[in-house]
């Protein structure tokens, strides 16, 4: 397993712990930060312990990440991020869900892209899922999802 990855991950956690500790001990009123101060001391202590172990090459828990995994997850993560952070509000929740769902199926469905049957299957699955979500959330639970250009 890549020891460098452990150093990076534990370094990031330690950075967050240092920031939390700094904010907890510098902000006022002190009484409001009493509990965060106690938590941040343990947070920083444990983070430093993990970081030192990683620096010494003794951090072995977890399998880390491989280049292949990054390549595989990249399209899915990108589609999901665009869906959640942009499309859901700009295009409308249901429209964005339909597009994201369909794109995810297309990107990860092992069925060949050259066959029209697999495209038909993807469209049917997407339409069914969005229809169920619409019935459940819009009609039964009366949840008002954001509307953008569409619904």
């Amino acid at each position: 397993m890549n020891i460098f990855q452990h150093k990076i991950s534990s370094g990031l956690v330690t950075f967050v712990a240092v920031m939390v500790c700094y904010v907890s001990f510098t902000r006022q009123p002190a009484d409001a930060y009493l509990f965060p101060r106690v938590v941040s001391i343990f947070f920083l202590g444990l983070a430093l312990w993990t970081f030192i172990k990683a620096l010494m090459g003794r951090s072995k828990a977890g399998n880390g990440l491989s280049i292949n995994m990054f390549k595989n997850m990249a399209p899915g993560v990108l589609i999901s991020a665009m869906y959640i952070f942009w499309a859901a509000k700009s295009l409308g929740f249901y429209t964005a869900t339909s597009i994201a769902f369909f794109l995810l199926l297309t990107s990860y469905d092992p069925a060949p892209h050259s066959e029209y049957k697999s495209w038909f299957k993807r469209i049917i699955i997407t339409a069914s899922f969005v229809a169920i979500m619409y019935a459940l959330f819009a009609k039964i639970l009366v949840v008002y999802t954001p509307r953008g250009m569409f619904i």
Partner: protein
Amino acid sequence: MDFIFYFGEVFTFTSMLLLIGGTIGGLIMGATPGLSPTMTVALLIPFTFNMTPVHGLILLGAAYTSTVAGGAVSAILLKIPGAPANIATTLDGNAMARKGEGAKALQLSFISSLIGGLFGVFLLIFLTPVLAKMANSFGYSHTFWLAIIGVTVIGSLEAGSVVKGLLSGCIGMWLATIGFDDIQGVKRFVFHPALGGGVNIIPALIGLFAIPQVITMFAKGRFQTDIEQIIVKKHPVSAAFREVFFRKRALAIGTSIGSVIGLIPGVGGQIAGLLAYDQAKKFSPEKSKFGTGHSEGVIAAEAANNAMVGPSLVPLLTLSIPGSPTAAVLLGGLIIHGIFPGPNLFQQHPEVIWPFINSMLIGQILMCIFGIYIASMAARVAQVPQSIMAAIVLGLAAFGSFAVQQSMGDVYVMAVLGSMMYFLERFGFSAAPLVLGLILGPIAESNFVTGSLISTAQNGPFVYFFTGGLNIVLVSIVVLSVGFSFWSEITAKRATH
């Protein structure tokens, strides 16, 4: 015997509909690899918002019970445990399926789950009020230590390393402090408008459990190894019942180990199943048959992981300490319905808690009936491609998080926490202690702050928090659980070297 008076609420039309729906849905979700009981319960919580607390909890309880049992379907037919609790079931269950005894293995697993589960729920019924009476004498310092026990016990047992488990708990406790401070109304750590109201438990739960699964499915890529299909031949149910009762030893071992493990906070069904399997093998005269498709292996493992369900709620309902990660999520479900677990729960909300517990009793029976009859259908569900599963879970997570407060901020929190958790999990961190820190953080903080205020008027914080019989016992539990986990980790490392 108070529980008998509240059975009427379970047999209403709506309750039965939810119980049946939750059981069938839970079995299917449990049978689907990648959808753990914890994630299923987390995804279901938003659907309970518009329900009464009783109906909401009946749905969540039915889903909890049946997902654990449903996980046996994919464990037996596909050698993929539907949930971590079903790992031990794969050992003999899949070997039976390969010998053409798939239907028999499924029937044995559901029948032994029923017996183990019923025993576990009866334990819940009779132990909870006793423990609740004891917990009535708890003060602020004791409640504070109980919250710390919840985080440290799960933290030291769940993660890849003890330090990382405890660190996950600290991250959760820090996340719980984001937003307005309850006593002074001061804004703390609000570095984005979406965090103005703090980190809402439900989107956080959905994100922490569902998003890492989605990214894991993405990371496997488009062309994953195809799942092997096994033909399920018919087998008479009556013969399966006879077999379970003939294997009394395995059933008793599974049920008793599962019940005890469930009572210990933080020790999940995974350990219960494996420990019961191991003990059943040690006490069996047919040791050599284990691993080759022996019915005792399936019976012991499944009786244990379902016997664990009821007792895992005992510390949750009386002390607010969840017995398993799924129980931790259920704690979130209770809190959003205004039910705060604790020693007075049975006095304050008997009309909610007893029907909930009773529904778990009925749910066990329904789980067995539906489990046996829909097992072959569930096998097909278990083969749903991961691409479809990932898209469905992502969609459900987005809709579920939005529905909590009809706020996009919650969806952002869900996505950010979930993505962060995926990367943390790759490096040995665990979601369960983080969630517990998030849920128990406010309980720990309010009791710590109130205790500190009282202590300044008395003999000081050290005397208030560290002296007195109960404080010493609770602090000792924290120290012992962490110490024992460190010791186990060190001995395991030495053994591998």
